[in-house]
């Protein structure tokens, strides 16, 4: 359940609440290389990801680690024709910009996992803003909390994950 939003928001931001924005496909089909690098980075020996027989038996073939869901929609650092760096969670950056809150931190992150993501999948993500608070003052400064989410589906339309983030955009104290 989303919190009630403040009533002093700019009309443009008010119009974003509960609206789907930035529906986009991942930049490349899901692949095993990042899975193996993540396993290496976390020294994770789970045979589900290293042993094809275990993967076949348990999950009908290879899958990616559920916790990697956000990896797949993070853009390349550079790509041809791009003049500005692309950022993940564009909605978060839009809020910083439109609300004139140049600093921001993420405080809470919840991910619910559904259909496993597999090598070869093409995913689509959609960002939704749920609420923006009134002005609050914390030890960081004065600003607003916002609650937004990312919904990820695969090429079959199966829901793979729902993420919820709480961000705090602020001007330094």
């Amino acid at each position, binding site marked *: 359940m989303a919190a009630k939003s403040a009533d002093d928001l700019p009309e443009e931001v008010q119009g974003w609440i509960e609206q789907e924005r930035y529906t986009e496909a991942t930049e490349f089909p899901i692949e095993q290389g990042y899975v193996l*690098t993540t396993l290496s980075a976390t020294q*994770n*020996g789970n045979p589900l990801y290293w042993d094809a027989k275990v993967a076949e038996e348990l999950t009908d073939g290879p899958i990616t*680690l*559920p*916790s990697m869901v956000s990896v797949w929609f993070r853009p390349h650092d550079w790509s041809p024709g791009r003049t500005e760096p692309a950022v993940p969670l564009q909605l978060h950056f839009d809020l910083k910009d439109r609300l004139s809150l140049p600093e921001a*931190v993420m405080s809470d*992150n919840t991910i619910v996992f*559904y259909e496993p993501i597999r090598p070869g999948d093409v995913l689509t993500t959609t960002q939704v803003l749920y609420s923006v608070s009134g002005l609050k003052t914390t030890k960081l400064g004065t600003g607003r909390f916002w609650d937004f989410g990312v919904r990820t589906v695969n090429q079959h339309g199966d829901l793979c994950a729902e993420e919820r983030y709480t961000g705090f955009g602020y001007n330094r104290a």
Partner: protein
Amino acid sequence: MSAELLSSDVSVGADVPVLEKLVKPVTVVLGAMASRDWRPQHHDYKFATGNNGLEDIIMNTPNLASWFERYLTDWTGPKGRLGRIKFRMKDSVYPGDTMRFAGKVTNVEAAAHGMSWVDVSIELSAGDKSCVGCEARIAVPDTADANPWKLKGDDWKP
């Protein structure tokens, strides 16, 4: 990696075995690159200390999520299927820190199709610092022949 954990092996209040890992610069950089996180505070010492006022480069959140998953599946074995994870960042993890993952079972709940939900509260600390609080829900089988990974649609409601 533990042998396959069954729900009958788990009770509320039980501790999940502690995991400790020394963080090196490569731990931070490899984790950031594996999670496609190119932000400079995860690989550029001068930026992290000069622009962000940090003590050093820091572990990034998406890679920490995979450390939490590894911590849980070390305990459950490969049939453990993560259903939900929630974390709150409290302090940064730097090279030279020893990450300490310590979890406690807070709920065990029978579900359908021969599996149970196990809720675990995990604290990631480094020395005196409490760095990340995490609440996770993972499905484990009730019997050796059950497999939470086979559940789909309405049968999988984490």
